[in-house]
C-alpha cells in the first residue's frame, strides 16, 4: 500500500508539472500581457516597459518558466501585482474559506444525495421516483447564478430568513460563528451537486440491485433496509466517491458564482479578479492549488474506495 501511495504521489507531481506547463504556456500566449491592465490606460510606454522588465516578462518564455519552477521549489508562488500581496498570502487567506464553503456544501450534498438516490432506485419508476427525477433535472438545469439570485430573493428578501451575505469574518471560527449566514451559499452550492450525485447514486444502486448477492442477502432473511444500506449502499458508493475526486475543479467553478453573489472573497473570486487583470502569479498560483487539490482529491477518493471495496485493494498494479 505504501508503495502504491508513493507511486500515486509521484504521478501526482507529474500531473501538477504538466499543469504548470500548460497553464504557463496558455497565460503567456495571452495577447498584450498584464502591463496595461495593471497600470491602467494612463500608463506610459516607459512605465509599461519598466513593469515588464521588473516582472521578467521580457525574458524568453523558457527562462521565465524555469525561474518560476525554481521559485516554486522554494515554496514561492510569486507576488500578485494587482493585490500587492504574496500569492501564498492570498492563498492562505482565501483557500480555507473556499474549502469551508465547498466542503460543507459537498457534505450536505452527499448527505442528501446518497439516501435520495438509493430511495429513488428502490422506488424505481414509481411516482416518487418520477417526482424526484423531475426535481433533480430541474435543479441540474438551473444555472448556479440564477439559483443564487432566486435563493436571495426568496429566502432573504421576500421571507427574510437568512442573510444575503455569507459570513464576513476573516477567520474560520468567525465564519462558523454565523451559521445562518452560511445557509444560502451552502445551499446554492449543494443543490446542483445533489442533482448530479443523486443521479449517479440512483444509477449505481440500480446496477447493484440487480446483482446476485442481493438475492443471497434476501434469501438469508435479511431485513430489506439492511439489504439496501449494508449491501447495496456500500457497493453503490464507489462511483460517487470516485467522482468526488474529480469534482473539485467543478466545485471551484461553482465557488466563483457563490462567492461573487454572496460577497465571500475566496479562491474562485481571487481567480476571477486576477483573470480580469491578467494577474499571472495569482492565476498560476490558484490553478496550481486547484490542480494539486484535484490530484490529492482523486488520490483520497481512490484510497477511500480501497477502504470500501476490498477488490480494489488487491488490484493495484
Amino acid at each position: 500500500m505504501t508503495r502504491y501511495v508513493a507511486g500515486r504521489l509521484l504521478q501526482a507531481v507529474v500531473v501538477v508539472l504538466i499543469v504548470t506547463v500548460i497553464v504557463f504556456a496558455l497565460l503567456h500566449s495571452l495577447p498584450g500581457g498584464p502591463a496595461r491592465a495593471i497600470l491602467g490606460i494612463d500608463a506610459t510606454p516607459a512605465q509599461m516597459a519598466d513593469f515588464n522588465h521588473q516582472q521578467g516578462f521580457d525574458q524568453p518564455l523558457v527562462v521565465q518558466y524555469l525561474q518560476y519552477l525554481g521559485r516554486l521549489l522554494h515554496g514561492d508562488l510569486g507576488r500578485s501585482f494587482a493585490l500587492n500581496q504574496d500569492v501564498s498570502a492570498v492563498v492562505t487567506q482565501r483557500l480555507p474559506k473556499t474549502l469551508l464553503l465547498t466542503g460543507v456544501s459537498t457534505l450536505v450534498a452527499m448527505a442528501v444525495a446518497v439516501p435520495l438516490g438509493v430511495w429513488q432506485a428502490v422506488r424505481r419508476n414509481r411516482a416518487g421516483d418520477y417526482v424526484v427525477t423531475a426535481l433533480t433535472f430541474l435543479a441540474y438545469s438551473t444555472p448556479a447564478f440564477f439559483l443564487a439570485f432566486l435563493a436571495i430573493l426568496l429566502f432573504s428578501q421576500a421571507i427574510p430568513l437568512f442573510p444575503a451575505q455569507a459570513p464576513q469574518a476573516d477567520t474560520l471560527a468567525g465564519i462558523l460563528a454565523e451559521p445562518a449566514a452560511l445557509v444560502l451559499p451552502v445551499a446554492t452550492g449543494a443543490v446542483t451537486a445533489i442533482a448530479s450525485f443523486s443521479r449517479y447514486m440512483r444509477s449505481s444502486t440500480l446496477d447493484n440491485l440487480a446483482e446476485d448477492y442481493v438475492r443471497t442477502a434476501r434469501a438469508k432473511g435479511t431485513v430489506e433496509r439492511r439489504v439496501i444500506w449494508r449491501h447495496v449502499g456500500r457497493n453503490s458508493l464507489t462511483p460517487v466517491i470516485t467522482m468526488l475526486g474529480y469534482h473539485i475543479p467543478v466545485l471551484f467553478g461553482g465557488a466563483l458564482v457563490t462567492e461573487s453573489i454572496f460577497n465571500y472573497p475566496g479562491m474562485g473570486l481571487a481567480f476571477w479578479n486576477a483573470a480580469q487583470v491578467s494577474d499571472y502569479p495569482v492565476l498560476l498560483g490558484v490553478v496550481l492549488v486547484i490542480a494539486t487539490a484535484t490530484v490529492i482529491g482523486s488520490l483520497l477518493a481512490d484510497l477511500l474506495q480501497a477502504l470500501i471495496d476490498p477488490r480494489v485493494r488487491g488490484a493495484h498494479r
Partner: protein
Amino acid sequence: ACGGGAGQQAGTGGGAPVEGGTASFAQPAGSTPNWILPLGVPGRTASFNQSIRDALWPPVLSYTAESGKLGLDVKGSLATAAPAWSADGRTATITLGGQSWSDGKPVTSRDVEFWFNLIKANTSGWTSYVKGNFPDNVTAFTTVDDKSFSMTFDQAYNQQWAEANQISLMYAMPQHAWDKDSDAGPVGDLDRDPAGAQRVWTYLTGQASSLDTYATNPLWKVVDGPFTLDAFSTTGRVTLKKNPAYTGPDAAHLDTVDLLPFTSEDAAFNAVLAGDVDYGYLPIASLAQKPRVEGLKYRVQNWDGWAINFAPYNFNDATAGPLFRQDYVRQAIQRSVDQDGISKVIWKGTAVPTYGPVPQQPAGDSLSDAQKTNLYPFDTAAAQAQLTGHGWQPGADGIVVCARPGTGADQCGDGIAAGTRLQFEMYSQSGSSETDAMMQELQSSLAKAGIAMTIRTAPLNTVLADTKPCAPGAACGWQASFFGARGAWYLNPYPLTDRQFSTPGTGNFGSYSNPETDSLELAARVSNDPSAMQAVSRQLATDLPGMWLPEPVYQVSAIKQDLQGVSQDPQAVIHPQRWYRTK
C-alpha cells in the same frame, strides 16, 4: 447638472447633526485597497486608495466640486490658500496651515520637501510622472520658512493647470519619522541626496507592500489627516478612526468609518437591501428598485465622474483608417449615435451624453459653448445624406458603397477605392450588458445610415492590451475600440487632454493627429485665459477624434438619509471627515 456631482449637500431628512457615530461605505465591487503611501506607484492609483490616503495625509492642494464646480478646496488642503504666483508667472509660493502630525510635531515645509525630494530622485517609479512635467519642470524648490515654500517652473504655465494638475500631486510626509532606510535605521536627511532618497523610497515602498501590517506599522501611525487607520484586512475591510490629534480645519465628525469590500455589484446591492451599509450603490440594471431602496430610508443619487467617454478610431488602420480620416464619415457616424436614447434607455438615465473632450458635468470654465450642445445630433437620414453627398451609394443590403472615388468635395475621399464598403469593426469590452446593448444599438442605427459596424468582443483587459497605436497603414488588429463601460478617461481637475488627443500623446491610441488641435492643446497648457481650454473643447467637439459616447456615472449611490455632509466628488474620492449623522 442632472442631480449629479456638484453640491450634493442637499438631500432629505435634514435633522440635527450629531457628532460621533459610525458610517459604513461600500467600496466598488471587486476592488480592494492595496496602497497606503502618498507616493503613487504604478498600478496603485485607484481612487479607493486615494480616498484612504487623503483621509490620513491630506494633499497640499485638494480639489473638490463642493462648490458646484470642480475647484480648489482649501479646507481639505494643507495650504491655507491658492499659491501666490510671482509676476513672471513662474514661481508659486505656498503657505501651509497649522496642522501637526499625530505625534505632536508640526507639519512643516520640510515635510513637503521630503516628499518632493523622494519624487525627484525616483521619477521612474512614480506613477504620475510624465517626462517634462512635474517634477522635471520645477527648476527650484525653495523652503521659505517652516510654513511656506516656493517652486520655480521652467516657464510660465497656465496657473490653473500648474495648480490643479501639478502642485495638487504634492503631499507632506512626516520627514521626522520616515526619513530612514530601514526599520532600525536613524532618521536623518537622507532624502537630500538622491542616493539616500532612493534608499528611503525603496524602504517606504517596501513597507507599503505588506498590506497585513498597514494597521500596525508604526510608520503609518504618523498622520496629519482627520483619520487614523484602525484596521486593514487584506480582503479589503478598512476601518478609519477619527484622529484625536488632528489640528486642522477639516476634523472628522464621525468616530469611525468602515469601508466594506464587495465581491460583486449584486452582493453590494443585497447589502443595501438588507440595510447593512450606510452608503452603498445600485447596479444600473436594478434601478427599478429605487423606490424600494428609498423606502429603506436611503436617498438615491447619481455620482458623476470627472470623465469623458469615447471610442477611439484607429486612423492608421490599413482598411478602416482611410474611412476614418474623412471628416464627413466621422460626422455621419457621430450623427448615427443616439446618445440621448442610449443614456436614457440603456443606461437608464445614469449616463451623461458626451460631446467633446471636457467632462460635461459639473460644467466649468473649460466647457465651450459648442460642446454644451450636440454638434452632431442623432439623425440617421442626415448621416446618410452626408454619405451620398460624398459619392456613396447604398448597396443591396443597405450598406453604402463608394461609387465616386476621388478627392473632390462630392467624392469619397483620399485612399478610398471605388466599391469600398463603408464598414468597420468595433472592438468592445465584454462582460457588461449595458455595453453589449449599446453596441447593438450603435450597429443598428449605423446600419440605418448605411454604415456597417461589426462587433467583436473580448475581456476588458484584452481590449486594453490590443488597443495600442500602430504604424500607418498596418493591419493593426483593431479599427475602433471601446473600453469605457465604467468610464474610460478620468481627467485631472484641469481637463487638459493632450495625452489623448495631441499627436505625441501617450494615450493617443488611434494616432489621431491634427496640427490645429496640437497647437490648441499647447496653448491651453500655457495660457491663463480660460478661452484657451474652451478652444480645445470646441475643436475636438467639432473634429471628432473618436466616437463620442455617453459617459456612465461613477455609480448610483444609495445613502442613508441620516448620513449627511456627503459630497460625491467627481474625482471619485470620498471625504468621510465631512460626513455626519443626524437625529
